[in-house]
């Protein structure tokens, strides 16, 4: 339960940061954009049901659309990404599977799994966002290019955030000796 509340808190915080700051992060004529709220979706615990994932994706996307005036683009991308997330997770899951009450983190899962899941989820979101936005088959290669470019920047940002604010190993700095003199 604690991990769920923590994850929802992270999701709200990332949405706020996206609306306040990262909405202005549009580079290279719109080829590279930052969607920081994807980090919140990545950090959702694995214990969530698939239905909850889809509903959270829809709500977050719809909120982004209302505030950023993108008219359904984020909702479409959010729903699609959250529908795909449980399936994407299976690609990077360890053999014994993930612990249910657990969000992905570098400390528990390592950089490889964190970067893998972040890249897969970010690309799914970005690609669907640009594909729906282009709405033409001829613009699909364009959407893939934009998706890849934006995913790279987002994953770099997510890695920095994870490195700075992610769970840290408990330092055993208590030097009191247990040896009974």
């Amino acid at each position, binding site marked *: 339960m604690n991990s769920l509340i923590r994850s929802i808190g992270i999701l709200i915080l990332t949405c706020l940061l996206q*609306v*306040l700051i990262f909405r202005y992060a*549009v580079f290279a*004529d*719109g080829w590279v*954009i930052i969607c920081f709220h994807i980090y919140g979706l990545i950090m959702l615990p694995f214990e969530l049901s*698939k*239905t909850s994932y*889809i*509903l959270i994706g*829809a709500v977050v*996307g*719809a909120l982004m*659309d*209302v*505030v*950023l*005036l*993108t*008219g*359904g*683009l984020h*909702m*479409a991308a959010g*729903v*699609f990404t959250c*529908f795909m997330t449980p399936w994407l997770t299976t690609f990077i899951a360890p053999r014994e599977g993930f612990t249910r009450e657990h969000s992905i983190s570098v400390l528990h899962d390592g950089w490889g799994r964190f970067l893998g899941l972040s890249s897969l989820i970010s690309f799914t979101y970005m690609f669907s966002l640009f594909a*729906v*936005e*282009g*709405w033409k088959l001829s*613009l699909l290669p364009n959407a893939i290019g934009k998706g890849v470019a934006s995913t790279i920047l987002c994953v770099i940002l997510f890695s920095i955030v994870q490195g700075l604010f992610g769970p840290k190993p408990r330092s055993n700095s208590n030097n009191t000796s247990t040896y009974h003199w």
Partner: protein
Amino acid sequence: MRTLIQLIIRNHRLVLFVLLEIIALSWVASTHARPRGTLAKIGMEISTSWTDAVGRLIDYKDFKTNNSSLLIENARLRTENMSYRSLSMSSRLFNSENSWESTPAEIIRYSTSFKNNILVANKGSLAGLQPGMGMLENGVVAGLITEVSVNHSLVLPIIHLSTNWSVRLGYDGAVGILNWSGESVEYATLTDIPLSEHILPGDSVITSGFQGTFPSGILVGKVEQLIVTEADEFQSVTIKLSANYKRIHYVEFLSKEGTHEIDSLLSKSSL
């Protein structure tokens, strides 16, 4: 019936996904084709009030006020200057009976990275703005109001996939349709120009005045490149847009007396 319900329950995730995607895609279709209606208004109100709040935090108040008033005054003078220049060139425009009025405003929200970009201006119906009014940026064509609330307006720029603009090549050239291909915010494509039309790079492209949104003769852009296909009877022209969407900030909206009269005539003819 029971089987159907059981099927839906069994595949409830897929049903939910399809349902939510349908909602999202209809939202996309309704807002990206031509944003109108209550949903567009509510979205615009929330978005602009949020942007206003953020803007207040980051702007230097006094500097902004002075700068704004100077630039708005500049925009008004430029429009006036343009109207006098048009009057001297051709008496059919900007005469006292058929005059265009400009309302200065500020763009507070814009997007240039999407295929269907929109702009939001900080003036609405309270300042006399109405859907259908044309927008100038630095004296050149930049967009068209599609929706207004009390204090804000939603503007479709040229860089929107679903807009078409009636333009003319030079002051006595052929009339064609200008639309945006979705690639670069600096270029648009002019189509339906007869092959017989002699065009050179650098030629001016101006408004035809047929849409009733702008007076004729307002600069839209310059010819950049000709695209001729042998199979076609028409040629296409790549136009470098004069409006700078990357730096758009202060704009003017044009209105004309007697527009309602023309509109009512047109609606009668369509009956």
